[in-house]
């Protein structure tokens, strides 16, 4: 709710509260209580809050966090305490390797989100060369790493790679140094992504922009960038414009209550809670850790983002969408232009 990822907090909170409301505040005869803590986008705070949730609040499951640096810290602690842990959004595959089998990544890995996009960029968009600009930390490197991994495997060439330090205010040196290629693969955290794209267009560069986990550019961010943002291609696990009856109904009722459309981060929280509720139903209301963990491995359920289940290791199996920015009458948003259905949301094993 605060810190670098404060922009994500309201959407996450709204989605969780909305799911709780839809569930009627109970599951399998048990009353549901949601305890929300703010980690301030800080790994140390994140662990402190997780400890408080487990030791003081005695929660049955921990959902979240969302930031890439906080998730491994919390996962490490929750593995030690054997608490079921369902993480929001995509994370590094290393998070699952803390052991214990109690960690679940419904939206898959950072690289997995990028991999399908790399395939699409080569096969369907016909790009053969690419230049890369990426925020130089684990999420940026792995999101774009997935894209370039698939792109190069198909025969594409990465002619330039510019890792850019987190918090950069002025991208002009990187933009001036950018080599001409068929496409620019890029990824930054939400504020930097908006800043990068704005400065990219101001610099008069015309190469197509392609971004994994595209919804870091929120509808409001796209509106701030303006008409030039139309046509950016990306990938992601969710957009409010997914054309399924369940999602249309969800978006309509969500917007009636909260005005803004649901975010990908919010829907990842919704999916995490939904999967947990299905697991509790499967156990008949038994929320002991071992039973819930076993039930989560077998659960398969429909969410606004599509159908989700897990591999035995806790990796999500779901739909990955290829997206493109569009201008609607009331907002800018990401439209679905293609889909990779029911795929294990990670780089395919060699």
């Amino acid at each position, binding site marked *: 709710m605060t810190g670098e990822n*404060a*922009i994500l*907090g309201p959407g996450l909170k709204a989605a969780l509260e909305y799911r709780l409301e839809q569930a009627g505040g109970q599951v399998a005869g048990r009353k549901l209580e949601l305890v929300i803590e703010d980690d301030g986008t800080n790994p140390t705070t994140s662990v402190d809050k997780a400890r408080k949730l487990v030791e003081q609040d005695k929660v049955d499951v921990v959902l979240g966090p969302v930031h890439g640096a906080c998730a491994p810290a919390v996962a490490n602690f929750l593995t030690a305490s054997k608490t079921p842990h369902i993480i929001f959004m995509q994370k590094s595959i290393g998070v699952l390797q803390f052991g214990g089998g109690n960690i679940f990544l419904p939206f898959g890995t950072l690289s997995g989100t990028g991999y399908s996009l790399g395939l699409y960029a080569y096969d369907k968009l016909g790009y053969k060369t690419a230049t890369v600009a990426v925020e130089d930390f684990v999420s940026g490197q792995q999101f774009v790493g997935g894209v370039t991994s698939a792109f190069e495997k198909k025969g594409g060439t990465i002619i330039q790679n510019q*890792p850019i*330090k987190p918090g950069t*205010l*002025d991208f002009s040196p990187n933009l001036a140094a950018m080599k001409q290629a068929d496409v620019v693969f890029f990824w930054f955290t939400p*504020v930097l992504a908006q800043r990068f794209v704005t*400065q990219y267009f101001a*610099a008069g560069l015309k190469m197509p922009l392609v971004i994994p986990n595209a919804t870091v550019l929120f509808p409001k961010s796209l509106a701030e960038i303006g008409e030039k943002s139309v046509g950016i291609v990306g990938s992601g696990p969710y957009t409010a414009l997914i054309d399924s009856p369940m999602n249309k109904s969800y978006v309509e009722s969500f917007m009636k209550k909260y005005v803004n459309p649901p975010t990908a981060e919010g829907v990842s929280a919704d999916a995490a809670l939904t999967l947990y509720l299905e697991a509790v139903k499967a156990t008949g209301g038994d929320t002991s850790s071992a039973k819930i963990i076993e039930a989560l491995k077998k659960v398969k359920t429909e969410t606004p983002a599509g159908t989700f289940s897990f591999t035995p290791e806790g990796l999500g199996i779901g739909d990955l969408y290829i997206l493109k920015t569009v201008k609607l009458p009331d907002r800018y948003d990401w439209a679905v232009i293609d889909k990779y259905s029911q795929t294990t949301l990670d780089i395919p094993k060699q």
Partner: protein
Amino acid sequence: MEVILANILNGLSYAFILFLIASGLSLIFGVMGILNLAHGALYMLGAFIGLTAANHWHNFFLGAVLAAVSIGIIGLVLERVFLGRLYKKLSEQALLTLGLVYIFGNVVMWIWGPWSKMGTVPAILSGAIRIGNFNFPFYRFGIIVIGLVIFVGLWWLHDKTRIGARIRAGMEDKEMTIGLGVNYGVISTAVFILGAMMGGLAGFLGAPIIGAFPEMSMEILLLAMIVVVVGGLGNVQGALLGSLIIGIIDTFGRAYFPDFSMFTAYLIFIIVLLAKPTGLLGRIKI
């Protein structure tokens, strides 16, 4: 050659953005000895207030004026009600202004939400000049020109006017200056207001390039501190020199040595701090 020229221009525009941010802090800390850790928050507030005004009235220049004036008023309240009572109490100043950072950040979240905003370039400064494959926006030229104008104005005020002489006298020996009949309290307040206005104006002018978001206060403050330490406290020449050094070296560092870009600015900061703790043109020890 074109890339070098582009980077020189990029470095200059970045340097003047830094100058706009840091000049206010240099004035406040240099003249009044007040450690205002809320300077980044004033920058942020100026950006949001100015952008709201500019969007509402569709007038960039009105947005700039309102950004400066509104933050000047906030500066007046801060100085009169809070900071004026903490003369020479650096720890208390730091704690108070740090608290203000969190307060202002939350106020912005309540009013404007967590979303990042980008400013719109005025029509008179839209467009760009072509340098090879690269466009250099006219707005960045505008930032350089505005920065130079502000520098000249502040330098003239500080070095060539009677008021400036009184400010400089107070910086050397406040008690003696008061003893000679100068109402230094009024001068201090006026300098604080001016420094705050500079911060607010910088926020609005920087918004079309950097944007504005509620969590940016500490990021901006850190940059401003690096610039004033390198250039030296207490005079705008120092703020300008520090900005030029940091802006140009950081830009070229990122263009030609990207692997080291994470710490280019901090390396300069450390070297200057070790070699000349008062800063390159500083008059006051930190």
